[in-house]
């Protein structure tokens, strides 16, 4: 990396100049100006984490933005966490399993967890949480409880769940996704879902919130008891989340030493730039989801598989991964069982849709499409593609998809939308092509039902295939991965051949922290990354 000082000077000049001259008034204010005085007061045992959004909801069962999750994960532990291979491993729970008929399940908890107000974290808290979610249908976890009927605390540390039908993903989903909240605090509120939890926090994690400057900084102090790390409590005294306007300012602050780590995943160009900087260490973790395009099969002619195939073969996925993502992505072989989850790969031999515009044209011509007006675009083949304009990756490759599809005679109109409009349009299924990504699809046994069953919550494409539905049923009731593998792989094959979901890549995320710190524990996904509870409890300054 060439790094002449002149270039750096120019860079420093160009940024403020550009922003000041062109867009005075349009740029969010820089929080730097407000708290430089306090940020560096005893830097010794304080870890400052940069984020680009404030905490919207302090209730861990409701909050769903990344910053919400990062902050609340430090206070409300889950029963399970992930290891490097994206497998569920013990956290608050020590062991778990199903009965032979699959109609009951059990979880054994640690006996040394306690809330910061001295109450023990026990089976009753878990049962309170799961019942509140079920009754009030709170957040995404509610969708994982279809089979759940009731739970009983056999002892302080052992819970037995009664299920209405065998559900092989139940324990893993609830264990990983459900933060445990204290019954003696959340139970006081008339409605758990509406409980704001915005003061007097009680934590069973390594840190507890003590001070909030809304939209600017969130101060968490170490708790005394966190038995999940060897030292019994966090190594740092304080973790501070500071809100920045964007990743550019975060990087500048990291380089200037005002920031110890960046919570957000780095854009590829930034990661490449930081790779040459000795004062910064980089971590790479895989995504647990995927980026994809879905074709709305409720609309003609996208209900024809030939048209979907033509669209799939019109795109150069290698180029997207190499250029747009700077190589920070792997191919998923156009399979919804991505290579990140090794346990499902054995014997799955799917191949990525080859980039072949000629083949696309042939498919379309065989299906009866013609170019009568001679404009090199097949008549009636004009589609609207919606995506979140704020997603830097998707909105960049959307332009490439548009250009390449035109080579195959297909016109794509880009409709990059503000996030809320985009969510509303996709929820209404109001699009021809959808471009986006799933953050985490961790339990195909249950998640596939959301994606591909006719009533699936995120079945954007409108998949309605009896064979897939039957296979999903079979997979869902399988109590071991070995039994679930066959139906899941068959679903992946059908989804691939019918182009129900065009999985383009699995991103690998880059995260940066100052080299002064060591002990980070990277975990897959940008939700956990190096900002997970175990990681922040473990870090210390060298």
């Amino acid at each position: 990396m060439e790094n002449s000082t002149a270039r750096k000077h120019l860079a420093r000049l160009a940024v403020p100049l550009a922003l000041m001259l062109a867009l005075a008034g349009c740029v969010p204010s820089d929080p730097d100006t407000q708290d430089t005085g306090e940020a560096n007061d005893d830097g010794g045992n304080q870890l400052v984490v940069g984020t680009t959004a404030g905490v919207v909801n302090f209730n861990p069962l409701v909050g769903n933005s990344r910053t919400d999750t990062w902050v609340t994960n430090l206070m409300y532990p889950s029963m399970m966490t992930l290891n490097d291979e994206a497998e569920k491993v013990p956290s608050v729970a020590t062991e778990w399993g199903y009965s032979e008929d699959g109609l009951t399940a059990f979880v054994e908890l640690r006996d040394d967890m306690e809330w910061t107000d001295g109450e023990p974290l026990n089976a009753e808290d878990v049962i309170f949480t799961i019942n509140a979610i079920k009754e009030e249908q709170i957040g995404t976890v509610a969708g994982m409880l279809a089979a759940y009927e009731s739970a009983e605390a056999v002892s302080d540390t052992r819970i037995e769940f009664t299920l209405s039908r065998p559900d092989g993903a139940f324990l893993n989903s609830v264990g990983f996704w459900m933060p445990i909240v204290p019954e003696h605090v959340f139970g006081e509120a008339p409605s758990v879902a509406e409980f704001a939890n915005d003061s007097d926090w009680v934590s069973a994690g390594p840190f507890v919130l003590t001070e909030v400057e809304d939209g600017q900084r969130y101060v968490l102090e170490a708790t005394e008891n966190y038995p999940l790390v060897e030292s019994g409590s966090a190594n740092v005294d304080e973790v501070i989340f500071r809100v920045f306007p964007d990743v550019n300012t975060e990087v500048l602050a990291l380089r200037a030493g005002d920031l110890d780590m960046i919570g957000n995943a780095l854009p590829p160009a930034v990661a490449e730039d930081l790779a040459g900087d000795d004062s910064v260490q980089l971590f790479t973790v895989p995504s647990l989801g995927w980026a994809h395009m879905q074709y709305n099969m409720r609309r003609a002619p996208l209900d024809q598989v030939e048209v979907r195939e033509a669209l799939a073969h019109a795109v150069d996925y290698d180029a997207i991964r190499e250029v747009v993502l700077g190589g920070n992505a792997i191919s998923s072989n156009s399979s919804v069982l991505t290579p990140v989850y090794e346990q499902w790969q054995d014997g799955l031999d799917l191949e990525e849709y080859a980039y072949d515009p000629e083949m696309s044209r042939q498919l379309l011509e065989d299906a009866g499409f013609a170019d009568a007006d001679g404009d090199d675009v097949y008549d009636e083949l004009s589609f609207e593609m919606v995506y979140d304009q704020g997603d830097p990756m998707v909105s960049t490759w959307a332009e490439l998809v548009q250009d390449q599809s035109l080579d195959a005679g297909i016109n794509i109109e880009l409709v990059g939308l503000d996030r809320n409009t985009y969510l509303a349009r996709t929820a209404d299924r109001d699009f021809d092509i959808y471009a986006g990504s799933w953050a985490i699809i961790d339990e195909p046994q249950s998640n596939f039902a959301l994606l591909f069953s006719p009533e699936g919550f995120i079945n954007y494409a409108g998949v309605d295939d009896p064979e897939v539905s039957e296979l999903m049923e079979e997979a869902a009731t399988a109590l071991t991965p070995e039994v679930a593998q066959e139906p899941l792989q068959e679903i992946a094959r059908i989804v691939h051949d019918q182009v129900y979901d065009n999985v383009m890549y699995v991103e690998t995320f880059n995260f940066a922290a100052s080299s002064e710190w060591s002990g980070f524990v990277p975990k897959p996904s940008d939700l956990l990354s190096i900002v997970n509870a175990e990681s922040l409890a473990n870090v210390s300054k060298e």
Partner: protein
Amino acid sequence: MTYNPAPISTGVLLGTDLSQMSPRRKTWRAFVRNPLGLSSLIVLILMVLLALAAPLIVEEPSGFSVAVLEPPSPEHWFGTDHIGQDIFAQIVWGARTSVAVAVGASVLAILLGTVVGVAAAYFPKLNTPLGMLIDVMLSLPILPLMILIAALVGPSISTLVVVIAVFSWPEVARVVRSQALPTVTLTYVNASHVIGASNLWVLTRHILPAVTPVVVVSVVLTASKAVLSEAGLSFLGLGDPNSWSWGTILYNAQRSGVLASAWWTALFPSLAILLFVVAATLCSLAYNDARNPRIRGD
């Protein structure tokens, strides 16, 4: 004696007899004598030509290349962006959007503003309600409203034009109204009424000509504001994704995180915006000075 003073005939020959020149020519003469005015006009004309001739100058930037984030070089005058597209080409094509939005939004805003302003000044009954409407519109927080509308309707050039025009006309209306108010009470306007001229006739023959100079200034100023607003909205991700714009180039630089490491991705589009806005402002200032008899000193 052969000396013949004949000052008048010489003056006529040289075309400098101010008393016999039309006001329009006097304004033009004063305008071209102002180096700032002339050069800014030339810059504006060049920008419009650039926009019109974009397809002849460079190919529309599309696709990708492996020359990612290259600094300016003879091959890529303004460098390349994070997917290897030429920034010079993006700026040339971006000029089309900027000029289109500037022209569209300012024409629309001027039409609305002039109608409202003249109506408020000419019809006494409308003066108070329209004046209030203008004041209310002027006090609205424009940027958040623009963002809201652009976000709800979905980004496209026509949305941008309408949104910007809807929030720009009150300024025009205010200036036009204040210029038209004294004109309405002048003797020749009253005289027209007395000899039975219709309202339409008075408006088109007497009032509109009187406000034309401020409208001309407003056109240029509104155009420059439209370019700024368009860049601002595009920078916030509310631009038309199917066409290039200077704001979009900045937005791409910002969201790809290369703003700090690749200065050329932000500098050149910013300069383009700056150049356009400064030229438009100077041009309108120079015109304003040129048509003012006291300043041009005749």
